[in-house]
C-alpha cells in the first residue's frame, strides 16, 4: 500500500466517522463541530487528489462560511439547540434504503478499471482558464443563483421587522 493510499484510507475513515458523528450526536453545537472537522477532512482529501485550489476553496467556503452559517442558524433558533433529536420512526427503513443505494452504486465500481489510476494534477491557472473560458457560463449561472438566493433570503429573513 502506497503512502497516498494509506493517507486516503485514513482521511476517508475520518470523513465517514465525522459525518456519522455529526448526524448522531445529541447536541447541535457538537454537530457543528463535527461537521467542521468533516469539511476540513475533505479539504485534505482534495489536496491529496492534487486539487489544491479546491482544497482551499473547501476550507474557505465550507469549513469557514458554511459552518459559520450553520452555527448562526443554530444560534438564532437557539430555543432548540440543546434539544434531543426527536426519535425517528423510520430508522431501519432509512438505513436499509441508504444501504441499498450504496450497494447499487457499489456495483458500478465493478466496471471501473481496477488497480492504480494516475491522478491528473491541474494547477490553479489551468483551472481558472477553464473556469472562465469555455465553461464560463457555469460561473455566470452561479452568479445568477446567488442573486436570486441573496435577494430571496434577505426578503425572507427581513420579515420580522414588519
Amino acid at each position, binding site marked *: 500500500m502506497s503512502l497516498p493510499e494509506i493517507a486516503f484510507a485514513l482521511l476517508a475513515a475520518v470523513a465517514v466517522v465525522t459525518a456519522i458523528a455529526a448526524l448522531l450526536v445529541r447536541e447541535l453545537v457538537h454537530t457543528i463541530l463535527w461537521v467542521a472537522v468533516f469539511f476540513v477532512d475533505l479539504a485534505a482529501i482534495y489536496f491529496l487528489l492534487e486539487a489544491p485550489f479546491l482544497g482551499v476553496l473547501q476550507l474557505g467556503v465550507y469549513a469557514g462560511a458554511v459552518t459559520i452559517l450553520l452555527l448562526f442558524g443554530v444560534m438564532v433558533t437557539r430555543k432548540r439547540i440543546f434539544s434531543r433529536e426527536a426519535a425517528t420512526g*423510520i430508522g431501519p427503513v432509512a438505513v436499509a434504503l441508504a444501504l441499498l443505494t450504496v450497494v447499487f452504486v457499489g456495483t458500478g465500481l465493478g466496471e471501473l478499471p481496477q488497480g492504480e489510476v494516475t491522478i491528473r494534477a491541474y494547477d490553479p491557472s489551468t483551472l481558472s482558464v477553464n473556469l472562465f473560458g469555455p465553461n464560463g457560463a457555469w460561473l455566470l449561472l452561479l452568479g445568477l443563483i446567488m442573486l436570486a438566493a441573496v435577494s430571496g433570503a434577505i426578503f425572507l429573513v427581513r420579515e420580522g421587522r414588519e
Partner: protein
Amino acid sequence: MTTLGPTGFLALSSALLGIGLFGILTRRNFVLLLISIEIATNAAILNFVYFAAFAPSAPLGISGQSIAVVLVGFAATEVAVGLAIVLALNRAKGTINVAEVTELKS
C-alpha cells in the same frame, strides 16, 4: 504523480452519499437536514474531482474540477437559502423540527 485506486475512493463517495441520505431520512431538525444534504453533495463533488482522472483527455478532465468549484459555491448558496427558510419558519411556527411542521398533508 499520485496514484489512487478507484475502489476505495468510490467506496468513500458512496458511503458519504449513504450517510447523507440516511440523515435526510431520519433527522428531524432542519439544520441537521441541511448538514445531511451537504454531506451528500460533497460526495458528488468528490466524484467530480476524482473522475477528472478518468476523462479521455486532460482538457475534458479539468472541467471536473471546474464543476467541483462551481458546486462548492452552489452548495453554500443553497445552505444560505435554507437557513433563511429556517429562520422564517422558526419565526412563523416557533419550531424547526420538521416533524412538527405537518399542517399540509394527505
